[in-house]
């Protein structure tokens, strides 16, 4: 029998098919003339220096962790919110409100804590790190390497 | 603390106010201001040609009036990048211009040749269209068959 989730599945498959078919069409009618220069990584017309796959300093990891905390807690508050109206009409509105309020307050305190500790500042951490490390490659080397490579 | 809080709300207010102001201006443009686009090349308006959209003094392609050219080669000599080539030949008694080529692909439209011309034989036209598939088309010959040069007398007249 029909299931709404069947729709989702079909949609997902159709989305894939859509892309697949257009790509197949591209294969059919678009030219393909690869050469090493063309398949080189674009970096503003220069030889790329090093790979793009590096250990990326993503300060947003922290943001991601914060996000997960918030998201999980929001999910916890979902049932209360959905039932808030029913509770209200049934006369239990105050309790539901207090419940939401407590939840949100706790979350909010968490945010304030993160804020106060500077986890929401992006620049501060980096400035400090810059001072600490001072790992700076000599640009001279890069330029001379390039010249060698070309010559 | 109150300062910080006041600042916090002032930030929100400023952001909203200035954003709204900016968006009001763009909305005004969307609704009211007409486009100023000149629809070159095909919808310039009644009876207007491409030459009409440039100003009078526009320095377009060089133009030669071979009837008053005295063949003094001043323009060729004064051009810093040698984009004019003139050859003259004595055919019979008179000097004839046999070649007057202007390399428009190289020309920098500076006007030195026009200024130096004693008879105003070489002038700027208003033509600016010259896109082509072959660069050789841009070497424009102004003389197709040898033409006698004008008498230098004209020079004195022009002053």
């Amino acid at each position: 029998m029909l299931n709404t989730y069947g729709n989702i599945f079909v949609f997902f498959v159709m989305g894939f098919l859509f892309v697949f078919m257009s790509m197949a069409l591209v294969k059919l009618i678009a030219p393909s003339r690869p050469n090493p220069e063309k398949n080189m990584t674009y970096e503003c017309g220069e030889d790329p220096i090093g790979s793009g796959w590096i250990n990326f300093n993503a300060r947003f990891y922290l943001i991601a962790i914060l996000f997960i905390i918030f998201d999980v807690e929001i999910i916890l508050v979902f049932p209360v919110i959905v039932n808030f109206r029913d509770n209200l009409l049934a006369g239990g509105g105050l309790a539901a409100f207090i419940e939401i309020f407590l939840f949100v307050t706790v979350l909010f305190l968490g945010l304030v804590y993160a804020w106060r500790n500077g986890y929401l500042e992006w620049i501060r951490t980096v400035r400090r790190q810059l001072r600490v490390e001072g790992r700076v490659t000599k640009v001279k080397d890069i330029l001379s390497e390039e010249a060698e490579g070309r010559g | 603390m109150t300062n910080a809080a006041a600042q916090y709300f002032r930030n929100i207010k400023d952001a909203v106010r200035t954003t709204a102001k900016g968006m009001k201006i763009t909305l005004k443009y969307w609704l009211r201001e007409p486009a100023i686009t000149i629809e070159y090349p095909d919808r310039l308006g009644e009876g207007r040609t491409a030459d009409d959209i440039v100003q009078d003094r526009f320095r377009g392609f060089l133009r030669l009036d071979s009837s008053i050219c005295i063949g003094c080669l001043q323009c060729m000599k004064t051009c810093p990048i040698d984009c004019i080539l003139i050859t003259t030949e004595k055919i019979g008694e008179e000097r004839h211009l046999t070649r007057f080529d202007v390399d428009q692909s190289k020309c920098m439209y500076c006007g030195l040749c026009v200024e130096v011309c004693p008879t105003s034989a070489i002038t700027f036209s208003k033509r600016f269209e010259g896109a082509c598939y072959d660069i050789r088309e841009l070497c424009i010959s102004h003389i197709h068959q040898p033409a006698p040069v004008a008498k230098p007398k004209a020079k004195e007249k022009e002053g």
Partner: protein
Amino acid sequence: MTEFLSDEMVLNMGPHHPSTHGVLRFILQTDGEMMRRAIPDVGFLHRGIEKIAELLPYQAFMPYTDRIDYLASICCNFGYALTVERLAQIEVPEKAEYLRVISAELTRIGSHFVGLGALLLDLGAVTPFVHALREREVYNDLMESLCGARLTHNYVRIGGVSYDEPPGFREKTRRFIDHIEYEFLDEFNELASFNTIFINRMKNVGVITAEDAIEHSLVGPNLRGSGVKHDIRKNDPYSIYNRFNFDIPVGHGKFGTMGDCYDRYWVRVEEVMESCRIIRQALELMPETGPVRTKLPRVFKPPKGEIYVRTECPRGEMGFYLISDGGKNPYRLKIRTGSFSAAAMIGEVSQGVMVADLVTIIGSFDVVAPEIDR
């Protein structure tokens, strides 16, 4: 707080990059989004103009000065003509002086429009930029009717200017500057300059103190943005600038610290208004008729000597150091441009900022590639 250790990313910004304003290249050493430093690499537009000057007669070099700073070609023409005139002691007719000043100031307006607009474009605001281009079209028409070209005007000649004003020029110019000063700039500021997002992007970014600015030989609006009141039009007046009444806008930390990107930006906005003031006065004072050009001998040879003349270009001091050996070509011509020292400065101020800030900083210096490379 834990420090995540990360590799240093070295990436090229330019020579083809939307926000490097021509062909500049910056080698960025970044740590994620944060930049450790940016090393400018210039010379992608090195055309050897100084060498060409040695190969050409004095008058024939004039069109090349257009291309030194293509946004302000008349200012460059002006500077070069002034240098040769001062060396050869040529008198310039009164009217030509006025026409030079008017056209140079108009060029300044046009140049600043591109400078301001391009900065805004780099910050993602396309509409103000296009509006600035729209006003530039009017300016271009004006200049075209005066000089015959839209960009490389080649208007100033040694000993005067090439053409007299066309009919109706004064009226059109007056209307243009009125529109700029009273309508367009107000709207532009509402739309862009006073936008909170824009202010936040610009303030306290790329701060240069006055000492630093002088130390690094910054000139023009970049120097004035740091609060140094120095304008060659006032301090070392040339041509007829001492007849006009105008102010020198300096940065004073309008929204953030003195000498930040916003100050440099705002100095340019105010300079547009000052230019309008100068043009208005010049239009009043300009004689109705008169010669516009001193006749020079066909083979023009200035006396032997050396001279250094500075003029105020939209990008700051435009200095011509001319050495003449008495021949028909210059012996050596050195062109000192504002963008040259500004480009060197970009590397200095862009340590420890974000990649997005680098774009702001480059834009706020308003560098033009051929001015750096020549």
